[in-house]
């Protein structure tokens, strides 16, 4: 049973209940209005057209909406309906959130740990939250962004730049509980959108540029009590520690941030999560070995946090190519049989397809012109041609990054924002000081050689089906809809729509600021389909003209 199939009976029940409510008493309708989303609702994914309850829309990470009102034929009429101005800036970065929507209310997080509840019809504010952040933030000061809320019942969950996890009352914006994930003074921060499962809030941590040790945590949504923690860098003697020097101090600061959302397979009860770079980023002499589980995807049991399998994309990373990209889960025909796969386009320039039950690598193919490696060996390891010390390879922001990709099941196409860059890396032994970044070298980027592209990859072969090029390397994410549309953003500030099959550009709108780290989301309200994109300090809502 696929993720979507699981949700269908519930949708039928919901629709029946809605019809009954309309026919019966107003008080019943009122009860329907206030029913807050539970785990079963999140499990439905995007089956309810008026809801978007988790970062990627559903647990699969596909960011593929079933909405069809806006389509290839009418998209040229798409117009802005309202904008929301946050008033809080992060020059040099982006407005990176994906809003959630339920019962006509948008729940939005912003830079510098602002957050809002907004009327999804008008963009007007119900409440605003602003966290008093300490002045001595570490990693959080250089990336003062946030990717969104998690939601369960009347609670919202948000992580903070001082590495806390907060629970909000979604009606008032009041804080229900506030717990520390890690000591921000050491270099920790948190920026992702919490992933809410059945009775668990899953979060990860940022700070791999500092002497930190990454982890993935599960918390009780009601109390904030920690249920389990998985360390991405093993402790002395633990499995994986053999890929590090035999030195507890090095393991304790091995990096391996988990700063971007993972995905979830409810049938296998497995969480799929990307792990970031080892520390120091560019200097590997202090950490000979593969440095597990840095630059890997890990599959964890959702109830215990135990590791089921892992795959390391970039062994002994020297280029800061975190693997914190959204893993996309899909059930696809693969060489004659149905395979449950996880797909990921990595910062190292390769697109991977893996069996998500076993972790078996099915395919790894380059999707950019990277000269780091051009193939994966039969042992599953990249055949490295150039580690960046001699001639250029992708820059530290990578061939793609955390901006969400999208998967269109009917077309079998994976849409990813690709960055073509040219960087030369110079290692230098860092001085390790808690609370100070330790990159371990410098990078020289040839800015004349940068460009970007939206690329459609055939998941069966990894081959490029079509591309649309951008003048500069881009951090905008992707949304697809079953109406045959791809929505994407670029570094020049354009929000665009494409024909998903042909790649033809159908529509574009200049938002006035780079679209950075964000992808669009969409929902129905009052019979109209809205598409939202954050850029700069502005959230813009688009729809077709009212009939």
């Amino acid at each position: 049973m696929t993720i979507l199939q699981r949700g269908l009976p519930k949708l039928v029940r919901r629709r029946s209940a809605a019809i009954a409510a309309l026919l019966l008493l107003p008080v019943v309708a009122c009860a329907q209005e206030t029913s807050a989303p539970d785990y079963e609702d999140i499990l439905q994914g995007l089956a309810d057209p008026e809801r978007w309850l988790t970062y990627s829309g559903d647990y699969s990470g596909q960011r593929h909406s079933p909405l069809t009102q806006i389509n290839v034929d009418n998209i040229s009429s798409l117009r802005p309906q309202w904008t929301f101005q946050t008033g809080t800036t992060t020059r040099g970065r982006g407005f990176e959130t994906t809003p959630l929507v339920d019962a006509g209310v948008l729940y939005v997080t912003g830079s510098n740990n602002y957050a809002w509840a907004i009327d999804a019809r008008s963009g007007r504010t119900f409440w605003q939250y602003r966290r008093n952040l300490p002045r001595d933030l570490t990693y959080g000061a250089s990336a003062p962004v946030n990717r969104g809320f998690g939601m369960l019942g009347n609670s919202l969950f948000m992580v903070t730049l001082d590495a806390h996890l907060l629970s909000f009352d979604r009606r008032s914006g009041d804080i229900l509980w506030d717990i520390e994930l890690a000591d921000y003074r050491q270099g920790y921060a948190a920026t992702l959108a919490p992933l809410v499962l059945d009775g668990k809030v899953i979060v990860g941590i940022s700070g791999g540029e500092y002497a930190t040790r990454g982890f993935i945590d599960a918390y009780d949504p009601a109390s904030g009590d920690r249920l389990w923690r998985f360390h991405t860098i093993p402790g002395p003697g633990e499995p994986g520690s053999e890929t590090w020097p035999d030195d507890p101090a090095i393991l304790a600061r091995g990096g391996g941030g988990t700063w971007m959302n993972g995905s979830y397979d409810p049938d296998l009860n497995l969480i799929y999560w990307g792990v970031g770079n080892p520390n120091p980023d560019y200097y590997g002499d202090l950490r000979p070995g593969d440095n597990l589980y840095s630059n890997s995807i890990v599959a964890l049991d959702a109830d215990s946090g135990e590791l089921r399998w892992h795959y390391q994309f970039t062994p002994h990373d020297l280029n800061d190519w975190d693997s914190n990209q959204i893993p996309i889960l899909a059930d696809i025909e693969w060489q004659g049989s149905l395979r449950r796969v996880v797909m990921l386009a990595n910062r190292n320039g390769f697109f991977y397809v893996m069996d998500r039950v076993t972790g078996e690598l099915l395919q790894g193919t380059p999707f950019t012109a990277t000269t780091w490696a051009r193939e994966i060996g039969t042992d599953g390891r990249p055949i490295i041609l150039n580690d960046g010390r001699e001639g250029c390879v992708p820059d530290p922001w990578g061939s793609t990054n955390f901006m969400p990709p999208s998967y269109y099941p009917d077309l079998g196409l994976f849409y990813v924002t690709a960055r073509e860059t040219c960087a030369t890396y110079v290692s230098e032994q860092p001085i390790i000081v808690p609370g100070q970044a330790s990159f371990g070298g410098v990078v020289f980027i040839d800015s004349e050689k940068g460009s970007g592209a939206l690329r459609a990859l055939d998941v069966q072969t990894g081959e490029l089906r079509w591309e649309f090029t951008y003048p500069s390397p881009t951090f905008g994410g992707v949304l697809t809809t079953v109406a045959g549309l791809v929505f994407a953003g670029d570094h020049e500030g354009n929000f665009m729509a494409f024909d998903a099959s042909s790649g033809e550009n159908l529509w574009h709108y200049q938002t006035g600021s780079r679209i950075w780290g964000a992808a669009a989301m969409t929902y129905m309200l009052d019979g109209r389909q809205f598409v939202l994109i954050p850029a700069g300090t502005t959230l813009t809502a688009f729809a077709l003209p009212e009939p």
Partner: protein
Amino acid sequence: MKKLRRVKRCILTALMSLSAIPIVLQLSSVQAQQVNPLESDPRAALAGGVLFRSQCATCHGGDAKGITGIDAPDLTLIWSAGETTDEGVFQTIRNGVPGSIMPSHGLTDPETWMLVSYLRSVAVTGATKFSGDSLRGSALFLTNCGRCHRVKSGGGSLGPDLSQITTRRSSAALINSVRDPSAVIARRYHPVSVVFAAGGAAAASNQRRVQGALKSEDAFSIQMMDTNQQLRAFMKADLIEIVREPNSLMPAFSRAALSNAELEDIFTFLQSQL
């Protein structure tokens, strides 16, 4: 490789010994220093370079020239306007830039001053003192440069403003840029031509070509200053062709056109206008 390691160790030792020295200095800096107390210590810039590479280079680049994609400024140019002070740079490093990704830094006072020393050491400055004939240079500038280049409030806009250029370039670099202007073309001055159909007709005879300096561009539009110094913008869908030209809009001046002595006069004039 071994030699490189030795050099690195040496730099680290220098940094550590410097960190240890100025306890007295820290005590005396309760009130913020106006001048860099390490200004005369040649080791400070070296040690500051180590700090720069570990704490600053990811955003400002290994060469300190900035990364435009993330709005990180070119730090080699911060001094050339003449308004930047050591104290101001110290405070920016210490406090960060609110509303941006430039964080505050919890470095000690000596470490922060080392960074200031390092930034001074990589500053692009024109140390040359020109001694030509300023009056003659003024006339030569007007004849040869003024249509496209500005100095103070006079001149054109097709090329870069030259009011501060003698503080940012050495004499040799200035001469090179006059003799071979296409060797290095500054951002926002790259030559471009767009070709479009006049009057809607696509026939080759009706094609029009506009040449200028590329100011900005996205997937759908292009912004430029044409050679008549008008700001022009075009939708790419309306264009037949976009030609990115290798040669600068500025003509190369041979020695016959402008002798080195005449260039000295022009640079002297520019310097007199600072």
